[in-house]
């Protein structure tokens, strides 16, 4: 029989990741109720999709599918960015950051565990967006496209959650992290090609967009929804995964940096 102190290595890491991730999600997001979740995460995004589809029709920019895919993928970013930020920054707000940092828990496991429920939530929101678009806007991708589309959405949500965790790490140091999250979320509208083809943007904006999460994921999703194969979009998916990895590493490094700095300056719990 293995005693708790002896439970080390991979098993402990997995436990921190899965059980710790779930418990921390329940603790940090205990304020979420259906009365909050449904208006914010489900109803509002539907109108975002409708708004941009009709705006696209009015200005005669692209077909409905372009805007449905762009927005249905992007709305998952609400979970990725805000929940990613809160998964770290709320520890400071709830005055539990010191206890967390005093624990010997493996930091990457801690991060990934916190990201998993956020990713699951992002997938639900995006699936809801596609589902409602199928009902209201007759968005009908081929049945064979659905699985590849789901994979692309998953990669995009992972990437966006890593971006959210990076911003959340800034919450270890800066007070106005929710303002930063707000800006970051809305900047994605402008730079990530949610409602605009790259050809409509200045070159500098295109390059900024390429360094942000979702840009390549949205392009891949559009290709697949238009009947393209998963292999054809593999390059874009690979880049999106690379961006996700880069932001995750950045989040870990920033977290470690601000942890050390916070301990040195005794500013961890300073609100």
């Amino acid at each position, binding site marked *: 029989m293995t005693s708790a102190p002896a439970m080390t290595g991979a098993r402990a890491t997995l436990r921190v990741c899965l059980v710790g991730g779930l418990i921390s999600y329940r603790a940090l997001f205990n304020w979420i109720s259906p009365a*909050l979740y449904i*208006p914010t995460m489900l109803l509002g995004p539907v109108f975002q999709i409708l708004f941009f589809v009709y705006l696209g029709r*009015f200005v005669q*920019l692209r077909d409905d599918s372009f805007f449905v895919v762009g927005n249905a993928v992007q709305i998952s970013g609400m979970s990725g960015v805000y929940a990613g930020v809160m998964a770290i920054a709320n520890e400071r707000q709830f005055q539990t950051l010191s206890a967390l940092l005093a624990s010997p828990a493996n930091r990457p496991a801690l991060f990934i565990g916190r990201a998993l429920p956020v990713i699951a939530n992002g997938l639900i929101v995006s699936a809801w967006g596609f589902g409602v678009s199928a009902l209201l806007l007759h968005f009908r991708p081929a049945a064979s496209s659905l699985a590849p589309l789901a994979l692309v959405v998953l990669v995009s949500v992972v990437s966006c959650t890593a971006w959210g965790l990076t911003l959340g790490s800034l919450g270890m140091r800066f007070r106005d992290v929710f303002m930063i999250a707000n800006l970051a979320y*809305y900047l994605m509208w*402008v730079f990530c090609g949610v409602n605009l083809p790259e050809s409509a943007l200045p070159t500098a904006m295109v390059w900024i967009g390429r360094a942000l999460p979702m840009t390549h994921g949205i392009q891949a999703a559009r290709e697949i929804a238009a009947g393209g194969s998963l292999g054809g979009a593999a390059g874009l998916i690979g880049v999106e995964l690379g961006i996700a990895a880069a932001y995750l590493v950045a989040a870990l490094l920033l977290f470690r940096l601000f942890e050390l700095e916070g301990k040195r300056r005794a500013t961890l719990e300073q609100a």
Partner: protein
Amino acid sequence: MSRAARLIAIGWRHHVRNLTASRFFVVTSVFLPILLSTVAFFMFRAGAREGTLLYASLGAGVMGIWSSTLFGSGGAISWARREGTLEVLVVSPAGYFWVLLPQTIATASIGLYSLVATLVWGRLLFGVPFAIAHPLAFVVSIPVTVLGLGMLGLLMASTFVLYRHANALSNMLEFPVLFVSGLLVPLSALPVWVRPVGWLLAPTWGMRAVRAAALGGNPWPPMGVTVGLAGAYLTLGALFLRLFLRLARERATLALT
């Protein structure tokens, strides 16, 4: 100055100063509409439809007023609840209506920042011409629109007394109102079921008045409708506030967060 006018003036000044001291609020009400307007400018410029960018610029500006009103009105009761001042405000001798009214007008007034910022942004970065067909009517149409949106904010805020998650509701209402009030897409281009809803909203008529004053047309009838709707919202808001405050006090739910 009458007591009511004094309360409105002091309350308005207090809330404008208070809200503009919040970086979060200023960024939300000024920077975000600029981002949205940027998307709109690029979409209008890249699209095949002929037309003026000033159309998009004005729409995006009024969107900013709406965002500010919604955020401020949704927050008015939630913030007071969180700070523990709601009960004190409700039992003040002036009555909560006179506390809430200037607050919602103040949030809509701050939205003027975003209108100006959007127009300047469009002029500087996209070369949007700022040629106004009826300057006097344009100057009148702006405060009329702000009044209409402010009163809509009051009506919403009054119903939020009973709703603990007012902020969530205000988050949800941003795009529906942008969608149904024709700020960027005319009502005629929207589904038929949307149009009657849009007719009941002051942003629809305020937008029509601003556009008619700027681009040509008769701005006075839509301005009249905006004022009429503002009066209706004010009356309903006062009634709802009295009813919902009584219910909240009976159920002892006023301060629940």
